[in-house]
């Protein structure tokens, strides 16, 4: 039999795990991790997204790696897709930009247009 404290700890751990999983609602962050992305520093960008999502305890965000996104000159890049299927592609990312994107786009739901490469809606 587990104590209440142990159960609470288990719940908190499970909730934290959820950030790495696919969630249907909420945001999906796809970081371009092809050869071009890695060469431009995408590993640090992926870590920054994961860190920010965990720090802000965002439960409805999935962060994943994808291959080359086709615009190698703008790497490191990340695509953010919201629950409605609207996609926003951010290019030439830096760690401070990731912090702003998480706070403004994913928490306040205000995409940062000056960092955007493109946006499209999947029908």
């Amino acid at each position, binding site marked *: 039999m587990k104590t209440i404290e142990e159960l609470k700890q288990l719940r908190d*751990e499970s909730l*934290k*795990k959820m*950030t*790495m999983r696919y969630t249907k609602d909420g945001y999906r962050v796809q970081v371009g*991790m*092809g*050869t*071009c992305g*890695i*060469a431009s520093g995408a*590993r640090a960008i*992926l*870590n920054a997204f*994961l*860190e920010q999502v*965990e720090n802000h305890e965002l439960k409805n965000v999935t962060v*994943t*790696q994808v*291959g*080359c996104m*086709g615009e190698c000159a703008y790497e490191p890049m990340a695509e953010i897709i919201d629950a409605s299927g609207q996609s926003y592609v951010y290019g030439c990312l830096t760690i401070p930009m990731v912090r702003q994107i998480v706070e403004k786009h994913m928490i306040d739901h205000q995409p940062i247009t000056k960092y955007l490469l493109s946006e499209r809606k999947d029908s």
Partner: protein
Amino acid sequence: MTKFTDYLYDILQNSIEAKAEHIKLSLKRNGLLRVLIEDDGIGMDKDTLLKVRTFSYSSRRKRNVGLGLSLIHDLSTSTNGYFNIDSTLGVGTTLSIGFDDKHIDFPEFGSLEALLGDLYIHQGVKNFTLMYEDVLLDFKALGFDDESKTMSQKKKLEQVAKALLTRGGYENN
């Protein structure tokens, strides 16, 4: 690429994409820096094996340029090393590459513990084993399974890895 660990991360992503359950990376200095990568992924046929060293081959349908393997192949040859790849469909792939890490064209090595941390947090990595000289590091054996991947677990793994690797003679410069 500015760091050698970036090359390794890029190549190891191929194993992840080949749906490998277990990836082994071995690094040994014996005259040359010898890298051995073994996976139990889907493997490649003989025709593909011949083409992977060149820029003009990719398994993707969208584009026909493939940089990963060809870049590391060129790095090995330009640093007077060697490049061998062997693969069997349904069994897995073995990559054996050598580099002269004192060569002027060899990049900065990068952080091995950060590489391990980044591989651990990759959602496609099930189990990973690193053999650095005589130090053996296995994610599952160290208690880092693929069920509870969090950034705090990643940082813990990096600390454990650094301590073990330093004991085995590894210096992060």
